C-alpha cells in the first residue's frame, strides 16, 4: 500500500521522514526567533519610553493582521528575488528555508508578544514597585522580577502558539517544496488513487508532532506555576 513512497521523485524531500524533519527544523528555528523577538516587542510595549511603546503596538497590530501567506510570499519575492538577499544561504533551497523562518518569526512574534503581555499583567504591580524601590533598573525589574513570572503563567497559551506555528510552516510550500506540505502537494498530484491515504498520513504526522508538544508544555506549566 505504501510502495509509492519509494519513488525516486520523492527522494529529493528525503522521503516522508525527511520532509517532516524539515518541518521540525522550520518550527524550531522560527520558535526560537519568535520567542526572542516577541519578548523584545513585549518589553517595548510595557516600556516607559513612548516611542518604544508606539513602535511595539504598531508592529504587532500591522503584522498580525496580514495573512501569513502574504508575508511569506512577499518576503520571498522581495528579499530573495528582488533584493537578491541570500541571508547567508548558498542554494535556492537554503535561501527559501531562511526566508521562510524570517517570515514566521516576523509573524509569530506578534502572538508571542501579546501572550506574554497578558502574562505580564498577572504579575502584581506592587512587586515591580518593590523592585524599583530597591534600586533595580527598568530592565532588571523586567528581567529578574516580571518576565520570569509572566513566562510561567503563559506556558500553556504559548504552547498553542507553538502548535499554530508548527502547522503554519506548511505555508512554506507556497514558495518552495521543501517540507511536509510540499511533499504532500507533490504526492497528491501523482497518486490520484491514494489521495485519502496521503491526506491521512500527513494529518497523522502533524498530530504526532504537536500532540506531545501540548502535553509536555501543559505539564511544564503546572510544574513551574507561581504560587500566590
Amino acid at each position, binding site marked *: 500500500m505504501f510502495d509509492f513512497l519509494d519513488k525516486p521523485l520523492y527522494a529529493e524531500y528525503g522521503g516522508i521522514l525527511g520532509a517532516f524533519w524539515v518541518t521540525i527544523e522550520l518550527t524550531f528555528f522560527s520558535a526560537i526567533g519568535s520567542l526572542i523577538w516577541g519578548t523584545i516587542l513585549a518589553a517595548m510595549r510595557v516600556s*516607559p519610553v513612548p516611542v518604544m511603546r508606539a513602535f511595539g503596538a504598531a508592529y504587532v497590530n500591522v503584522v498580525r493582521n496580514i495573512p501569513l501567506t502574504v508575508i511569506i510570499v512577499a518576503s520571498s519575492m522581495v528579499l530573495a528575488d528582488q533584493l537578491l538577499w541570500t541571508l547567508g544561504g548558498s542554494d535556492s533551497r537554503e535561501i527559501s528555508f531562511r526566508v521562510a523562518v524570517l517570515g514566521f518569526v516576523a509573524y509569530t512574534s506578534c502572538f508571542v508578544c501579546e501572550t506574554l503581555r497578558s502574562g505580564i499583567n498577572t504579575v*502584581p504591580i*506592587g*512587586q515591580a*514597585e*518593590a*523592585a*524599583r*524601590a*530597591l*534600586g*533595580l*533598573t527598568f530592565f*532588571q525589574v523586567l528581567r*529578574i*522580577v516580571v518576565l*520570569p*513570572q509572566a513566562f*510561567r503563567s503563559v506556558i500553556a497559551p504559548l504552547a498553542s502558539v507553538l502548535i499554530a506555528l508548527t502547522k503554519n510552516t506548511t505555508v512554506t510550500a507556497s514558495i518552495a517544496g521543501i517540507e511536509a506540505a510540499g511533499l504532500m502537494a507533490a504526492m497528491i498530484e501523482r497518486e490520484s488513487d491514494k489521495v485519502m491515504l496521503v491526506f491521512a498520513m500527513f494529518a497523522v504526522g502533524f498530530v504526532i508532532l504537536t500532540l506531545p508538544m501540548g502535553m509536555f508544555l501543559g505539564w511544564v506549566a503546572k510544574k513551574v506555576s*507561581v*504560587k*500566590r
Partner: protein
Amino acid sequence: MTEQTSSATPMIKATAVNKYFGDLHVLKDITFEVPRGQVVVVLGPSGSGKSTLCRSINRLEPIDSGTIEVDGQPLPAEGRALAQLRADVGMVFQSFNLFAHKTILDNVMLAPVKVRKQDKATARKTAMELLERVGIANQAHKYPAQLSGGQQQRAAIARALAMKPKVMMFDEPTSALDPEMVQEVLDVMTGLAREGMTMFVVTHEMGFARKAADRVMFMADGEIVEDTTPDDFFTNPRSARAKDFLGKILTH
C-alpha cells in the same frame, strides 16, 4: 567640613511639594524636614495623601512642583541615578510585595547582589543574619505564599534592610495583617527605631506612634495640619480635624 554639613543635613527635606492626580490636588505645598535618626509617624484620615507623600519621597510617584532631597541630594529624574538613590531608601508596603517566584532568602539577597554587586556568599550571610533578627531564619527557603502575613512583612523589612538604607519608609505596614500578627511586625519596627534608624511611618497604630515615634505629622486633605510630638498631639490636638480624627480612632 563636608563631615559637618552632612551631619547637619536633614535625611529628608521636602520643599513646597505639590502633586495632582488629574484635577485632584493630593499634596498641597508640603514642606518639612526629617533630621537623621528621627522616627516620624504620619497620621491622617483615608485619602489625605499619606501614601502619595510616602511614595513621592523615592519618586515612585513623581511630583508636579517643589523639591525633595534625600540626604542633601535632590531626587534625580528617572534613570540610573534615581535607581542609586532608591537603593538608599528602604520601603515597606502594606501588601508586602515579596517576589512570588523567589524564596525568602533570594528575596532578601536579590538587591544586594544585583544593585550593590555584593558577592553571593556575603549577601547570603547578611541575609541570614537579617532573617534571624526579624525571627524568620527558619523560613528562609520557603516561598512567600507559604508564609503568614506577619512573616511575609518581616521578610519584606529584612529585604529592605539588606540594602543598608539611610532611611526606612513604611506605608501602613500592618494594615493588611490579621490582628494577632500586628505586634510581631511592630516589635521589629520598634527595634529598628531604638537602634537609631531614620524612619517615616504611615500607620494607624496609635500604640506605635506613642511608644516609638519622636514626632507625629497629621495630614488632612493633602496638607500637614499638625506637626508635633506624639504626646502633644494625643493630649492636646489643636485643629478641629485632628480632634475629629482622634475622636473617631480612640472611641473604636
